[in-house]
């Protein structure tokens, strides 16, 4: 029987969504053009050549190394692209992805990338043409709600703040706007440089949809340990597994022999 990875425990919608993110089995909700993704990332002009930091690997004459023979380089590495990044801020108000799950998704599903998780933002670094592909996958899929997740290279404040009146995550640089038709557009690239024209990144999700798609446990949606005032609290299997890991880790850390 073929091995099936078991990514995450729990039978709640959050557990199911977390498994979806980790496995990469994500629903594609929209199709943003490559040029638009490149424009928002802001590292190169759409259509421009990829600057390189070294010649293509095929021309370099690599040393005789069994690992290099075993591992096929990513397209970006093979071409000698620069390392570039994309960074997302996800609102804690039921954004579909939360920083750790973007990282799990990247680490498990994207070759040659370096995910970094911070308290309210998540960055993935990779060779330029690789990160463009990974970023497009994130923006096209259910990992991203345009209203509650924004690509922010700097001045990322917003994850833990209340939403704006119209349901957008707070952004002090006003990179995005919600149109009358319910679509969200980028007015600036991820570091705040104004774009020549707006980039439409799709319709903002409804409250019901984000509640169903989120990977964050919240007391007012899917609670981690059941409602605090319930007669009998029932912990999510994810919490039981987490307790187990913490117990083992603490004991192991305390008595390493």
């Amino acid at each position: 029987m073929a091995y099936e990875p078991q990514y995450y425990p729990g039978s709640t919608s959050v557990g199911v969504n977390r498994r979806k993110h980790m496995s990469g089995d994500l629903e594609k909700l929209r199709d943003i053009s490559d040029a638009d993704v490149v424009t928002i990332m802001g590292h190169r002009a759409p259509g421009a050549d990829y600057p390189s930091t070294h010649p293509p690997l095929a021309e370099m004459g690599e040393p005789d190394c069994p690992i290099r023979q075993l591992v096929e380089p990513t397209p970006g590495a093979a071409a000698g692209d620069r390392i570039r990044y994309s960074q997302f801020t996800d609102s804690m108000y039921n954004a579909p992805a939360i920083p750790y799950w973007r990282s799990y998704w990247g680490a498990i599903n994207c070759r040659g990338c370096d995910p970094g998780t911070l308290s309210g933002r998540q960055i993935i670094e990779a060779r330029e043409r690789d990160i463009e592909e990974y970023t497009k996958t994130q923006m096209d899929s259910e990992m991203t709600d345009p209203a509650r997740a924004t690509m922010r290279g700097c001045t990322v404040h917003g994850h833990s703040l209340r939403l704006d009146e119209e349901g957008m995550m707070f952004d002090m640089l006003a990179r995005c706007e919600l149109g009358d038709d319910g679509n969200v557009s980028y007015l600036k690239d991820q570091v705040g440089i104004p774009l020549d024209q707006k980039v439409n990144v799709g319709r903002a999700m409804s409250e019901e949809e984000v509640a169903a798609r989120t990977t964050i446990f919240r007391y007012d949606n899917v609670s981690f340990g059941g409602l605090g005032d319930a007669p009998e609290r029932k912990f999510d299997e994810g919490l039981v597994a987490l307790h187990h890991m913490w117990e083992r880790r603490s004991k192991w850390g305390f008595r390493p022999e």
Partner: protein
Amino acid sequence: MVTKSDTEPVQIEIFPNRFLKPETAQCLLNEVYNVGGITRMMIQGPNLPKSVPYGPARGLPVEENLNILLELGDQALELRVKVGRIWLELVSEDYIEKIKAACERALPCSFNIKKGKFFRTKSTVSDYAKYGNDVDEKMLGLVDPKAKRERDLAILSDTR
């Protein structure tokens, strides 16, 4: 905006569950101001920078945050924050229900009103550095230590 009264003053916090757009904030402040009975008011929220503070775009103006004016009574202040919290000192408890009604009229989202003690009563080291020994107690806690009094503080006349 000083209204003399012999009743005990109370302090309340209006906490909307969403950040307010400048137009909504203006509408809310008008409604609250029209209720009367306010001795002090403080508006708080995350900063709206005039220019990009970090990164490759550092120094570029953020057009959306420029020239947002709040008008109240006979004064106008430049709004430099996204309004998320308002502290009020009222001349008496009688005004709380009226303030609540004003919030219901002006706010498109749910909100909480909490009674408590929000403005500090003792001068801090920063206050001493800013105002010296002779500080008017009503000034305490109204603006950040780094704020400029003439830019961020407005004193309204008694007549409304």
